[in-house]
């Protein structure tokens, strides 16, 4: 099934409480070599047909204006997956 994958991460300089809690847990397990954990989102847009360049364009637009909020997040990637 053709799909477009949108990946979103909290901005670098923003506190990521989820990531911090997971990092603390990993440290408790002895994984001291992991210096930090940051947690973002992967969003899949499924299509019932071949994905066109316009679809990718639309997905980039939605990623920037709806799926993410540029005050707190960055869109890291918008990619096609067959």
């Amino acid at each position, binding site marked *: 099934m053709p799909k477009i994958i949108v990946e979103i991460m909290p901005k670098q300089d923003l506190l990521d409480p989820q990531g911090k809690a997971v990092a603390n847990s990993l440290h408790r397990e002895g994984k001291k070599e992991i210096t930090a954990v940051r947690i973002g989102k992967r969003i899949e847009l499924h299509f019932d047909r071949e994905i066109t360049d316009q679809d990718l364009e639309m997905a980039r637009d939605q990623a920037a204006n709806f799926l993410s*909020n540029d005050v707190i997040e960055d869109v890291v990637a918008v990619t096609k997956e067959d």
Partner: protein
Amino acid sequence: MKIGVITYPGTLDDRDAQRAIRLAGGTPVPLWHDDDDLKKVDAVVLPGGFSYGDYLRCGAIAAKAPATKEVIRLAAKGLPVLGICNGFQVLVESHLLPGGLIRNEKQHFICRDQKLRVENNETAWTSLFEKDQEILIPLKNGEGGYIATDDTLKMLEQENRIAFRYVETNPNGSMNDIAGITNERGNVVGLMPHPEHAVEAGFGPDTPTAMRSGIDGLLFFESVLKMVVNS
């Protein structure tokens, strides 16, 4: 004088907001998220709660609802709009107000009676307050940390667009102690604390005079009613 209150799936405080409007002397009009007919109301309240389960981001999906789109259109023409808590989150996601709201600094959900200072008493919703008046209304949120870019913060400070600031305690790590802001025109105001929960003696925050006697929230609604009557 009709003030609309929008109910989204997951809204909690719509009934309290309607009651506050009634106690202030207005007529509350229930509005539904999926209907772009705002019933010719004179002002709109976006109440607190967890619209659409806070999916994607708090307020993000509500910002795209048919009723919200109509609010955005009419706010540009001067319709008074008050966003409380989740309603404030809807206003920033709608770009009616700048900045964003993130998880509280200490990651806890905070519920307390919160002291605020009214920094701007020239908005549609704050005109009956004295400038720098300190008020006490309940605050209850998990994602109430106000953030914005340095440029936005500077602009808000310079243009006197910070409507309310937290006093004594900053409960959620909000930048510049910001509890609420207004748009340039002063018709759109958003804040995290809940004025609609401090409108009737016996049900408000404790004050030095008597338990649960705090009604500082009532002036928000009386302010907008006075403005609508005068215009």
